C-alpha cells in the first residue's frame, strides 16, 4: 500500500528537499539560482572589507610613511636640463630627478605606472618617456600625456640644503 508520508511537509522550512520528485530536480531552479546570487552578493561584500579597511587606514594617516631624508646629489653636479637617477625611499625604488631651471627641481619615482618599466627624461622632447610601450609623461607634473599609462608618476618632494639636494618624501596623488 503506497504511503504518502514522504509527501507531507512536516513544518515550513527552507531546505526545499521535501518535494523533490525527480533526481536533480532542484539542482538549479529559480530559487536555487536566487540563493546563489544572494550568496555572491555576500562574497562581494566580504571581499570589499579589506579594501575599505586599508583605505580607511591610509585616510587616518597610519599609512603615511615617513622616511629619513636622503641626499641625492650635489647641486653643482647636476646641470640645468639634466637628470640623475637615484633610489628613494627604498633601495629598490627607482627614482629620477630633473633640474628644470636654475632652482627648479622635479623628482619622481620613475617606475612607469603602466607596467613599471623605467621612465627616462628626454631633454630634446622636454618630456619623460617610457620606452616599453611609448608612454609619455609631463615633466612638470608627472601626469601621463600619451600611451598606455593612466596614472601619474608619484612625485618626490625634494629640498636643497647647503648646495646638496635631498629627497624628503613621496607625495600622494592629487588627481
Amino acid at each position: 500500500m503506497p504511503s504518502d508520508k514522504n509527501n507531507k511537509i512536516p513544518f515550513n522550512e527552507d531546505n526545499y528537499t521535501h518535494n523533490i520528485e525527480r533526481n536533480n530536480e532542484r539542482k538549479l531552479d529559480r530559487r536555487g539560482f536566487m540563493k546563489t546570487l544572494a550568496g555572491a552578493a555576500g562574497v562581494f561584500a566580504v571581499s570589499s572589507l579589506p579594501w575599505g579597511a586599508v583605505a580607511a587606514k591610509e585616510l587616518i594617516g597610519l599609512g603615511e610613511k615617513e622616511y629619513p631624508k636622503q641626499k641625492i646629489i650635489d647641486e653643482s653636479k647636476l646641470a640645468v636640463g639634466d637628470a640623475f637617477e637615484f633610489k628613494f625611499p627604498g633601495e629598490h625604488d627607482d627614482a629620477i630627478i630633473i633640474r628644470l631651471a636654475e632652482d627648479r627641481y622635479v623628482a619622481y619615482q620613475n617606475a612607469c605606472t603602466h607596467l613599471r618599466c623605467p621612465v627616462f627624461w628626454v631633454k630634446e622632447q622636454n618630456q619623460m618617456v617610457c620606452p616599453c610601450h611609448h608612454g609619455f609623461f609631463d615633466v612638470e607634473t608627472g601626469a601621463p600625456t600619451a600611451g598606455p599609462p593612466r596614472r601619474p608618476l608619484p612625485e618626490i618632494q625634494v629640498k636643497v640644503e647647503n648646495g646638496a639636494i635631498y629627497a624628503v618624501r613621496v607625495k600622494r596623488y592629487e588627481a
Partner: protein
Amino acid sequence: MKRSYVGVAVLAVILFLNIIFTQYMVHQFFYENYVNTLIFCGLNIVLFPIALFAYKKMKNVKA
C-alpha cells in the same frame, strides 16, 4: 508552473552593481582616492542585505 522572475531580475541587477562597484573600488584605491574607495566599499556591503531581503521576499512569489 508559472513563476515570477522579478526576484531573479532584481538579484541579477544587484550582482551587476556589485561588479561595477568592485571595479571602481579597486581602481580608486590605486588612484589613492581613499574616500571614493570607502564609498564603493560601503555600497558593496549595503548591497548584501538588499540582496538577502530580495531573496527572502521573492523566493516564494509565484506569478
